[in-house]
């Protein structure tokens, strides 16, 4: 009888996730402009993607993005959360400050960085240029555009991770921490042998979610560069968006969405396996 409890969520998931997902997978095998009747073309969209250099640029950018977000914000978040744990005084204040960027709308954050920091006319960058420093707007250079966008996203993201890690660290048994202190453990030894093992499941979950989110990244890229200049900051989701709504190639966009989902599925499978292991322990 208790199995029926899952029915409501199952119905919602089937209706608003599974059906559109299956339709998207099906559309990946059709040529469709979003207006007229779709035409079945088999693997045509995937073959077109294989031969499309912009697709490979976008895929590479997503991988770079994932690597960046698996290291930099997680590292900073862990460090800051540990410091908050060590120096309890003012931890609430700093948590709020760190978390603030998360509650500001993405569009506003992106425009603030674009207009008030990066802009050579109205931003800090322009002020530095007028003072004689040879600075550049990173969003305008193919070699730095993706990093320029990632910087904005990292700035708003690491605080969230810090708060999550801090909450997890507070669950580490106090006796273990006290015992390590009595044994004379240094800060790094405390981190390595007590705190990090204590919050391992949280770190694993955050890393898996980072992989999934990194392949879904869209908002900051679209607002700041729309994938440019010269496709240098294109990611899979902006490529899918441009294909669907500018090129009127909805089938190709669906094929890109399938590729994005494959990476998400791999990460999800990994997460489920990890969870099963946790239960076994």
């Amino acid at each position, binding site marked *: 009888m208790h199995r029926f409890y899952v029915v409501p969520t199952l119905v919602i998931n089937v209706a608003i996730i599974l059906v559109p997902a299956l339709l998207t997978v099906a559309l990946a095998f059709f040529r469709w*402009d979003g*207006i007229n009747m779709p035409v079945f073309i088999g693997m045509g969209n995937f073959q077109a993607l294989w031969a499309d250099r912009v697709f490979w640029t976008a895929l590479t950018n997503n991988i770079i993005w994932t690597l960046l977000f698996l290291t930099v914000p997680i590292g900073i978040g862990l460090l800051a959360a540990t410091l908050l744990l060590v120096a309890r005084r003012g931890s609430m204040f700093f948590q709020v400050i760190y978390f603030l960027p998360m509650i500001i709308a993405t569009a506003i954050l992106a425009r603030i960085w674009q207009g008030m920091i990066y802009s*050579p*006319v109205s931003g800090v960058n322009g002020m530095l240029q007028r003072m004689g420093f040879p600075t550049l707007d990173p*969003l*305008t250079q193919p070699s730095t555009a993706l990093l320029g966008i990632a910087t904005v996203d990292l700035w708003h993201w690491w605080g969230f991770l810090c708060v999550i890690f801090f909450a997890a660290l507070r669950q580490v048994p106090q006796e273990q921490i006290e015992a390590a202190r009595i044994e004379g453990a240094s800060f790094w030894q405390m981190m390595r042998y007590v705190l990090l093992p204590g919050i391992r499941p949280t770190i694993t979950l955050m890393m898996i979610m980072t992989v999934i989110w990194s392949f879904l990244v869209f908002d900051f890229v679209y607002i700041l560069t729309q994938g440019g200049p*010269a*496709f240098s900051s294109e990611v899979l989701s902006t490529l899918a968006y441009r294909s669907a709504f500018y*090129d*009127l190639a909805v089938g190709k966009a669906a094929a890109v969405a399938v590729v994005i989902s494959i990476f998400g599925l791999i990460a999800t499978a990994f997460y489920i396996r990890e969870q099963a292991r946790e239960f076994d322990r």
Partner: protein
Amino acid sequence: MERRLFIKTAIALMAGTALTGAALAAGPITWWYETATPEQQGVITRNIIEPFNAAHPDDSLSIDYRGAQLDNQMRVALLSGTGPDIVYTAGPSYVAPMAQAGQLLPLDDYAEQFGWNERILPVFLEMGRYNGQLYAVPKTYETLGLFYNATLLEEHGWTPPTSIDELEALADAMLAENIVPFSSGNALWRPTNEHYVSLALNAIAGPENVYKALNGEIPWTSEPFAAAITRLNEWWQKGYFGPNYFSLNGEQQVAELAAGRAGMMPSGTWQFQHIETYFPPANAEAGFVGFPSTEDVGEPVFPLGVGSTFSVAATSQNPDGAAAAIDFIFSDETYTAMNTEWQGEWNTPLSDLSGITLGDDVLPLYTEAMQTLAQSVAQDEYGYTTWTFLPPATNSFMVSGIEEVWLGRSTVEQYLAQWDATFQQEMAEGKVPAIPAR
């Protein structure tokens, strides 16, 4: 007796409800519009919505501002059989697929009834045809030209260029003075790139060649187009577009020009709305001329642009009311009222502007430019903007691909080859918009 009274009352109530429903079904006219500031929304309400509803008491025109993604929302709504009565598209290239899918009503009878065939410039009616039937009428038309800082030019003893060679000589002189020759930027609107591609195609390759290519008579890889894009690339490499192209937006272009940090601004007539904001505070005067052409092309060409059209949805419950509202927008009174308060966005393609006098506050430069454009169109001496005449995927590639050429990631030949391949595919699929005969 009581039962009879009950039945009578029930019947009367049902009939009343049905009649009200029928009246409501015939009355409302819905119209989705793109982004507009609160001030601009006020201008539309004052000059279109309120006077139309006053003149048509049986109808009720309402407008819904849908933002920058109107185009995507409209496509989804029409696909699901919903959406507004008045279909506002992003240009003629979007009309053909919608007409093909049966989402739009043919407007030929309304054109006859309201006299649009006489009142609207014929070339614009041609753009809205699909398979010989009229499906859309352009809301506004625009052109590209060369704005310049007249005060700056006078201070340096320079004159506005009349040929491509003069343009390059002036741009080189500006570079030597540390002035950016072309005030330009695509930070908030990446398709700004196509303004420069359109200018190069018309001024260097010439509108005749563009016309042939749009009709599939010559490929886009032909020599005139290679020459045009090569020259455009040379301008980029020489620094004509300045160091901040990817950082500046459309309004900042005007600010830079007014401040004298840039000398010229190749751009569209929609920029007239910003001239009064930036030039008087900078104690500068603006100028506007046709973009110079090569000797082979001759006189400056005004590329014709249409960024939005009106149609009536096939599912509309009140198509007559929707057509009447479109007709109201194409009246002399609406043209005068809208262009007096909001220049550059409501230049409806009326055949005869002789009876129209705009308000005293309107920049004479704007009135002159619009009259010159109307004259060029009436004499069939116009060029082609890419956003009006290229099919969607070709246009999308053209916008992004030119950045690859500028930044050395692709050659002119590679760029044009992919442009042509995309165009040929879309042409085979019937996605090229109607091209009026020259």
